[in-house]
């Protein structure tokens, strides 16, 4: 009961948020919260550190932008096309990457994402250094004009809630339990008869797909798909968001994403603008050394302690 009350409160907050804050910033937060949550599925629950998620995020952004701007697809279909592209890319990268574990998995995903990045630099449809600009926001089902920031916000909220729903469903399903079992003790999961490679691959593909959904939505919000979205700095940023919020917690990544996005936004306009990378690096180091459970993880641990 308490739980539903909390969810209702959260939803109300999300619904009234654009009245209180700048909608474009909120949409950015939502997109990155979804991106980080998708990433958390593979790292927090699957125990696999992917350093290549920017490829799915940025790849979907490009495909969506191209589909809407050049092919003239309606917004929803454009986002779906981009998401599907991320899924295919996720399958290709995943099949190769799950052949190795641990540290190697991270290096392989990073290298493959870098390869995708180079392809984007060379490919004509991405617009090279300029990126894909002026992607029209279009309408929702031909009814609601999305060029209005408030309308766009509710559209993005809807898309993100669907994405969060898929992730939460995956985590709390038998599939999610097997995934955690593999993370905690791979040989034991194997000996119980689970085909662990298939579980890992499925988790990776779901994660890549939702990351793509986030990137696709972001490209429509900002009407821009650029190399920044696909660069490995973006992969690092999503790791940082997830780590800061709390690995393997449902809400942690969203919390981490909100903090990092807000921080970047505040810093970039202030006198500390040139120090953003340095500050991000510092947060990274502090998180790893002193704060490995992340904000939500530490809160949960503190709550548990106070009850015992």
């Amino acid at each position: 009961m308490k739980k539903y009350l909390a969810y209702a409160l959260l939803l109300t907050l999300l619904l009234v948020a654009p009245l209180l804050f700048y909608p474009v910033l909120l949409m950015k937060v939502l997109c990155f919260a979804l991106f980080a949550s998708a990433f958390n599925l593979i790292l927090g629950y699957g125990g696999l550190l992917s350093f290549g998620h920017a490829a799915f995020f940025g790849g979907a952004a490009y495909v969506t932008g191209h589909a809407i701007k050049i092919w003239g697809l309606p917004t929803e279909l454009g986002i779906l096309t981009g998401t599907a592209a991320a899924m295919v890319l996720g399958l290709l990268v995943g099949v190769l990457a799950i052949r190795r574990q641990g540290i190697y998995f991270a290096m392989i995903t990073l290298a493959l994402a870098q390869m995708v990045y180079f392809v984007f630099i060379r490919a004509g449809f991405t617009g090279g250094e300029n990126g894909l600009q002026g992607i029209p926001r279009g309408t929702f089902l031909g009814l609601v004009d999305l060029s209005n920031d408030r309308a766009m916000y509710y559209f993005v909220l809807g898309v993100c809630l669907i994405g969060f729903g898929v992730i939460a469903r995956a985590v709390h399903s038998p599939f999610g339990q097997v995934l955690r079992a593999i993370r905690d003790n791979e040989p034991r999961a194997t000996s119980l008869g689970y085909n662990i490679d298939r579980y890992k691959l499925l988790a990776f593909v779901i994660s890549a797909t939702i990351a793509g959904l986030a990137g696709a939505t972001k490209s429509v919000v900002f009407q821009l798909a650029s190399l920044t979205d696909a660069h490995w700095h973006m992969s690092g940023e999503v790791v940082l968001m997830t780590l800061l919020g709390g690995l393997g917690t449902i809400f942690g990544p969203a919390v981490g994403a909100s903090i990092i996005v807000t921080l970047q936004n505040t810093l970039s306009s202030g006198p500390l603008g040139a120090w953003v990378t340095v500050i991000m690096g510092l947060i990274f180091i502090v998180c790893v050394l002193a704060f490995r459970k992340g904000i939500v993880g530490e809160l949960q641990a503190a709550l548990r302690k106070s009850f015992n």
Partner: protein
Amino acid sequence: MFSDLLGIAPQVLFGQLLLGLINGSFYAVLSLGLAVIFGLLNIVNFAHGALYMLGAFAAWLLGKYLHIDYWGALILAPLIVGFIGVVLDRFLLRRLAGVDHLYGLLLTFGLAMLIEGLFVKMFGASGQPFAAPKALNGGVNLGFMFLPYYRAWVVVASLVVCAVTWYVFERTKIGAYLRAGTENPKLLQAFGVNVPLLTTLAYGYGVALAAFAGVLAAPITQVNPLMGSNLIIVVFAVVVIGGMGSIMGAIVTGLSMGVVEGLTKVFWPEASSTIIFIVMAIVLVLRPAGLFGRTN
């Protein structure tokens, strides 16, 4: 004599081959350092590219403010950066003992962001020119190509450093300790060897190798705060191809990947920036453990 080979002018072919060999030397020295560090610390040093850059900057700063020439910098810069590595290991990496290896990668990633961010802030993102030593100016015409002395020196110096590292690891007492530390640090400690000291030295040495490569690269690529940031990813791919199991494996894979890259520039220029990643994908399909890796 080689007037026309496969329709490619020999100057182009051998020029790219030399360039590939130079890149390969950097890959070899850098992946060698990564292998040494990984062996003892079980950490993939994401800061390797940043420390390579730090080596080049150390040389540039030594020259600018202390008027130390190239040869002095080639010795001093790796020592300075190696010392920084020792400090980093003692104060940061040491705290991650017993934690999942992935955190080591994340910590060093944060370090790389911090170091590169600081240098971009201080020196800007554009490169600083760095002159090659006078003794190595000019070159020799070999008939089929022009060989600049400095480029030849880079390849020779890298090979010598690789060979010395190989000799120390495979043929000396301290190398035996290092290899034992890779296999079973607890047992080695029980025999009375100071394993934490050994680990710190290994990190310092691996980092010094990166800085050495940075100084060698400085006259070729200019001294740029981001010179190591994309390079490190290619080196990771090289490491995946070769596997981090053996010193010789790292050297051979590094050099040959450089050559492969150089040849691709001649025959299939569009793929030259991605060829190493393509090779990595093929190796993963055919031999997941890497060419020199051991499966365990």
